[in-house]
């Protein structure tokens, strides 16, 4: 009878631990050795200085839902001490040995990386303090993107030239970091820039528009483009061409051009046109707020005054 009971118990235990394929590794080297299908997920926490992250080691990192979300990855926890003793220093060093630690802005953090240690996403800050199901969902989403990226890169291994560049470009998925060496591969395989991906990766609103639209007192001879030229440029880059740049990149370009027009002549009717385009791309984005503030401040300030008066009366 007892034997049966124990066997049943053992089965239950085993069932509990094997329900998810994610496994806990004790060190980064051990995690790497396992060559897990979904890479390595590393939880960073502060055992002697951050109560929340230490508690979350159990409530989040050891949560069944999170483990399930981690798919076939190796899970590892790395303590970051504030005031470690020699033993803790040695222990932490052993755990992280061989890992290139990315720039973590805030603890706790889950660093998601491939088996070579390349970070494709860091889950930290507001995102990690969401409810557990939401954090699990984020992990799942990022993992899904990582798998997609991995599959595309695998295909790219066999491809050459533009085809390789295309696969690399497609692997630059919105929501995770671009593949390691993406720019180098893209430039080597698409030297003429026939595909949009190099431009997307190198996107810099300053280089494209802003630098030509502000006065730098240290460079009095710097030539600025005319407002007409700015409008023509942004029309070409962000209005007529809707495929080269990502939506948020187009919004930035439009905002930079609108900002320039506003500095030159607040009454220029084209400002509203550019603002409208920004809203059309994504009316819920931060750049939509930028449009609202710009209009309130400079384009139709009288409306803002009325709103303020109403607010005070309330």
């Amino acid at each position, binding site marked *: *009878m*007892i034997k049966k*009971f*124990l066997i049943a*118990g*053992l089965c*239950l*235990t085993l069932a*509990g*631990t094997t329900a998810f394929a994610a496994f*806990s590794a*004790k060190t980064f080297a051990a995690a790497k050795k396992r060559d897990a299908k979904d890479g390595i997920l590393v939880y960073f926490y*502060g*055992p*002697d*200085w*951050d*109560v*929340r*992250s*230490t*508690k979350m*080691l*159990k409530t989040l990192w*050891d949560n069944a839902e999170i483990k399930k979300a981690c798919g076939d990855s190796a899970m590892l*926890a790395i*303590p*970051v*001490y*504030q*005031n470690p003793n020699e033993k803790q220093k040695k222990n932490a060093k052993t*755990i992280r040995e061989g890992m290139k630690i990315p*720039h973590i*802005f*805030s*603890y706790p953090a889950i660093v998601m990386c491939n088996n070579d240690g390349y970070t494709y996403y860091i889950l*930290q*800050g*507001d995102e990690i*303090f969401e409810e557990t199901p939401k954090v699990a969902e984020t992990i799942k989403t990022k993992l899904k993107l990582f798998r997609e990226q991995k599959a595309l890169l695998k295909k790219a291994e066999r491809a050459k030239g533009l085809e390789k560049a295309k696969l690399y470009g497609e692997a630059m998925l919105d929501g995770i970091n671009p593949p390691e060496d993406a720019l180098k591969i893209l430039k080597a395989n698409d030297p003429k820039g026939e595909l949009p991906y190099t431009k997307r990766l190198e996107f810099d*609103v*300053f280089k494209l528009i*802003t630098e030509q*639209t*502000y006065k730098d007192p240290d460079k009095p001879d710097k030539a600025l483009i005319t407002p007409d030229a700015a409008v023509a440029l942004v029309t070409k880059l962000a209005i007529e061409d809707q495929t080269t740049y990502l939506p948020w990149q187009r919004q*930035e370009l439009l*905002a*930079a051009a*609108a*900002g*320039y027009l506003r*500095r030159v002549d607040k009454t220029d009717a084209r400002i509203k046109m550019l603002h409208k385009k920004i809203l059309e791309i994504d009316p819920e984005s*931060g750049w939509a*707020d*930028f449009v*609202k*503030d*710009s209009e309130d*401040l400079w384009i139709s300030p009288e409306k803002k005054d009325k709103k303020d008066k109403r607010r*005070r009366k309330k």
Partner: protein
Amino acid sequence: MKYAPKFTTALCALFLALAPCLPQTFAADDARPKTKQSAPKKTSDKKGVPAKKSDGKSSGKKSSDKKTGTSKKSDDKDEKKAVPTGGEWGDPLKLQRRIAQNVAKNFKTWSPAELEKFFKDEDNLKDLAKWELLRALQEDEEEFKDFKMSVKKSNTRRFLGEFSDDLEWIEGYIYTAPPKNANFAIKLLRAFVEKDEEVKTVPVIKKIATGVVGEFSRRGWFEDEFETDPELKVKNGPTRIYKRFKFYAESWREKRLNPLFDELDFWDTRIIVGVTGRTNNIYFGSEESLRWGQDNVKLPEAGYASPRDIFQMPYRLWNKVGDSVHNSDYYAPFMTWYGRNQLKRAREVGCVCGGVSHYGASAACANGIPAVTMGEPGHCAFATRQKGKWRDNNSVSWDRSLHWRLWDETSWQFLHLTQEIYADNKLAMKAFRAGTLARIVASEKKKPTLDRVLEIYEYALKEQPVNFPIWREYLEFAQAQKKDKTFWKEAHKRIIDAYVPAFPDVAATLLGKNVYPNLLPLIDNDDEKIALYTAFWEKVNDFGAGRWDCESQWEYEVRTLGDGSGAESYKAFRKNYNAKEPVAPPNDGAKARYKEKVGALVSAKKDYGQNFENWKKGTPRK
């Protein structure tokens, strides 16, 4: 039933088997760190000044201070005792007179033994603190009238009774920074107590409340600085200040702050809870911003001192749409986007030196780590404290002007000095209490003698020789008494002994502002003046707590000699050496002798030798 024991054993085995198999690091349960790591209470000066012995209670904290844990359950409360009615506060002036009379009764000969005995009695200490509070309340006549009206209410008197009966609390307010605008502070503190009982009972909450009211009143932040409507500004003022208190109290209760916060004293709690709310229309210290900082810029103590860790934002002179950081348009179109969350706005929109430094300092303070911003020529830097030492970050120059300071002096060494003074809180309190006693005696119509007052100040300085505010007050009192040359020469020697080699800048400041303007007019011989200066430079080894404006000191000293010297030059304490194009100092007889003698002393000193040569040539400093 014969299987029952075996069944229980099996069940236990099953539970054990089902327990998650975690690595040790995963298994931590009570996350509140057990270590008592904190800023050392007494630091040894790296330049050779030995650390004074501390008895382990040197912070002046009660043992309950050291506890951590949740305050919701009030496990950290002081012992209950009879609540004082505060009746004596009904007539503040009468109370003040009574205290002064009581104090006088303790002394016959004013011997050190009598002083020792007096300071051992806690009731005497409470009397001193009450008197000091009353003195501060009278700094503004109108405000004192308002205070006298307020004590007509019994609940105000009761509050004052409780506040002044808690020695650590009242001293934590009056001796950890100059108690400016005391009436405003007391009103606020009473309001906080009414809203949150634990202000009185939980030491950390008490420090937070006292720090908030102390800093907001000291710095003159009376109104809601985030409100642009003048009426709402006045109306919301205290509400917003309460919000700051609530923010930190809740953060501590929710264990969002670094455990180092639990170990802070009243003075350094002030730095954190008094973090500037708004600078030039930018809201780094709004509650939204600080809260975001807790969730998104949470780093270990060393992280805020590390440029690599804290530089989390693009450094941009022009924002993405081309507006310059030097005008308000830089952030203006991003107000709705980020609301009052300036930390997030800085991280995403960008900033320059000022933003980087306020970002680092505000984020550190949001998480319970002391940090201050400071100006440098054409730049803004910041400093955070790591393991009891202040470390600069985002700094381009040693020439700094602290934005947070207690005694008006803004140079870098004064931050280290403040740390040094309060690191041994017990000694600091002894010195401040003696300072109050000196003030009481000085205020009496029938003073024992004026020298008695000076002797009490000297007693205070014997307790804590580096106590800058007591030194300054002592010297100002001596100046008013027109003390003789012997006195000032002795003071000169004692200041050097107290501060050199650790804090040469502090010594030079006291000498230049308070001693030389009184002593030099009493000397008619340039060589005697030179001897004073060489006595200082002889003892100086290196820069001590940090590079200081030694060139301006030489400039000042040389101007007090030979042609053109006189009362005006004695009073003209050093000006920033680089403020105007430096010129080589003249070479008349006394000045040449000065350069020769001081040059001989400093030439072999690593930090000074080359700088002295450059100064002699009028070379602009780098």
